[in-house]
């Protein structure tokens, strides 16, 4: 067991620290102040990070990554926390799109997709859920019809974050009906600028339209945009979800620490930090955020040994989502009646937005099933 940094790692840490100090945006920005401004701000920030070599830290150099190890990624995440720096825009692409292309993509695909994803030039979204396929993803109905050198896609996806600005969609489609619904799926990378793609914003309980519906009407997708093998999309989808809950889990651990620190600051500003009940709550959240991060460190150590994130990643997502809800709720509560009027600090927005955390990217119920079945070996409930 060792948490000490090597000399090289210390050097990297100091370099990142100095760079963030000099370059991070003064204003973190929040969705509450308007989506366009928020997204463009985060895109510009990602570009800046990319130019400095801080995006895709573990991704291979030849595709625009840094080619460094998990350790550098962790150091970078920690420095982002310390600096209170905002996240880059392309969260879906960085957490899932890139890793799944690296895992299942052809050489041409890696050359084509990874660099613009890292630079923030091309934003990615994830077309998995449908109106009738939520937790039960294999029930999806979006069809891909084989037309020789291309597919014609028809169907509908829903709850798609960033679809309104995305260039690429990771789309799971049904190519054939099979007795096992997990067979016959094909995983496509769809150009969101293709004719027949229509994005309709879905207004959420926050009043924002961060999620979308996507309608596909006779959309032509060249076969060069199949990821993995035709008919074998389930395996690619599972890799995506493992990364979603694993590597993205580490980013969530980082975010939880940031939120806990912001909540402490919020309590100080409100003059509530001497209230023993408030102190207890904030301390508890801080401890849980730290435990979440340490779980991630253990998972990363295991990943260094085994290569891919395990189902333990589901622990991170489950913990983070429920913790985040409690933190946002406490932030609103401790403001008293002022918590429900105005939104200077963005907490009212967070309070509402966090309700989706236990639904998106695997509901808490699905994640508990995964833990019960794949980690504890309990019988399948379905």
């Amino acid at each position, binding site marked *: 067991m060792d948490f000490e940094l090597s000399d090289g790692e210390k050097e990297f840490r100091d370099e990142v620290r100095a760079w963030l100090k000099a370059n991070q945006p003064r204003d973190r920005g929040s969705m509450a102040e308007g989506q366009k401004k928020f997204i463009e701000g985060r895109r510009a920030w990602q570009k800046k990070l990319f130019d400095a070599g801080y995006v895709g830290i573990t991704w291979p150099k030849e595709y625009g990554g840094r080619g460094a190890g998990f350790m550098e990624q962790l150091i970078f995440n920690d420095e982002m926390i310390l600096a209170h720096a905002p996240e880059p825009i392309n969260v879906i692409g960085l957490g899932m799109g890139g890793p799944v292309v690296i895992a299942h993509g052809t050489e041409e695909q890696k050359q084509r997709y990874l660099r613009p994803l890292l630079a923030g030039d091309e934003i990615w979204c994830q077309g998995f859920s449908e109106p009738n396929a939520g937790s039960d993803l294999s029930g999806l109905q979006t069809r891909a019809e084989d037309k020789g050198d291309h597919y014609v896609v028809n169907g509908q996806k829903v709850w798609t974050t960033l679809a309104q600005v995305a260039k690429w969609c990771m789309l799971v489609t049904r190519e054939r009906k099979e007795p096992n619904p997990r067979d016959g799926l094909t995983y496509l990378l769809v150009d969101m600028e293709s004719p027949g793609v229509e994005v309709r914003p879905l207004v959420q309980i926050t009043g924002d339209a961060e999620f979308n519906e996507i309608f596909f009407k006779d959309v032509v997708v060249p076969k060069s945009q199949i990821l993995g093998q035709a008919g074998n999309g389930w395996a690619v989808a599972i890799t995506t979800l493992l990364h979603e809950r694993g590597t993205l889990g580490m980013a969530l651990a980082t975010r939880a620490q940031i939120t806990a620190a912001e909540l402490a600051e919020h309590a100080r500003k409100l003059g509530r930090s001497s209230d023993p009940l408030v102190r207890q709550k*904030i301390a508890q959240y801080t401890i849980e955020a730290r435990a979440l991060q340490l*779980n991630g460190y253990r998972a990363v150590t295991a990943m260094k040994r085994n290569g891919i994130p395990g189902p333990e990643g589901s622990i991170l997502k489950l913990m983070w989502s429920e913790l985040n809800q409690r933190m946002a709720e406490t932030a609103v509560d401790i403001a008293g009646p002022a918590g429900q009027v105005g939104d200077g600090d963005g907490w009212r927005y967070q309070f509402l937005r966090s309700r989706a955390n236990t639904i998106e990217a695997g509901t808490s119920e699905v994640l508990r099933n995964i833990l019960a079945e794949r980690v*504890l070996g309990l019988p399948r409930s379905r």
Partner: protein
Amino acid sequence: MEFAFSEEQEMLRRSARDFLAKECTPKVVRRLMESEDGYDAGMWKRMSELGWTALGIPEQYGGVGTFLDLVVVLEEAGRALLPGPLFATMGLAVPALIEAGTDSQKKHVLGAIASGDARATLALTEPSGRWDADGIKLVAHQAGDGWRLDGVKAFVPEAARADYMVVAARTRSEGEDGVSLFLVKGRPKGMAVAQLDSLDMTRRWSEVRFDGVELDGNALMGAAHTAWPQLKRALEWGAAALCAEMVGGAQKVLEASADYAKTRQQFGKPIGIYQAVSHRLADMLVLSESGRSATYYAAWTVDADAPDRSLASSMAKAYVSDAYRKIAGDGIQVHGGIGFTWEHDMHLYFKRAKSSEVTLGDATYHRELVAQALDL
């Protein structure tokens, strides 16, 4: 960074688990918990032959291995509900001696502990039940070349069979200033140990009265009045050590409960198929894994003497105190009626969880320490 135990430590874990599976069966635990002393001298000897009583003690005083090695063994001890003074000796007395003992005290007492010849404990809490410096009211007055101790220590673990006792006393003023540590050998005149009837029968708690106990000048550990910082560091070691026992116990409860849910049938199906049961088990897993992470990290900070050792040990004790209690209670629930019987072992874990929760400060106490560290 490598957040996992080494191959050697995993071997130590396997050998500890094998040893305890043979020597510390549930039957043995029950025999010892009904016994007068609550421990088995023969087993202690065999544990010391395996080197367990030397773990974490510096080499020059007869020690072998690191605190992290000790943590591995304590986790297995907690899993097996090992009764007796392993935690009191290695988790409390040893760090107090390492931190505050004079060279001669270390040589004699740490040496005797390492070789398996002596057991020891720490007498800190008093009837107020406080774990902070203000709670230390037992008075030590200078008397000639020596000291005279008057007062009561209320919740001293494994005191009855301790050959040595580190006693926290007040030599002046209040708060952190004026705390001194004394090393008491055997049972000097005026010292009375009364074993208390306690919830967790696998541990022995005693009240120890000091009624004009006269000690030599060389009983003082280090300098007078200024022992609190050393004692605090010893308690950080103790918290990480206790958490290790607790996560070992929690893991065992989780495994037993998951196994039961796979085999126990109701409505024609194993009960683990029902999400009301399986989701409870998933929550137990989250608590167990997170407690383990917090504990291992705290143990590392103590072992490496990292600057955040105080914060890390408070975070671990806060988290694990709540987690073990919840897991042990849920373990009873998953087992249903059989889990509520004396015959089943679930209640032993439930009781150990509660007694460990309130030892070295409960979650509320440590959360407040964390809040202070956050400058709230």
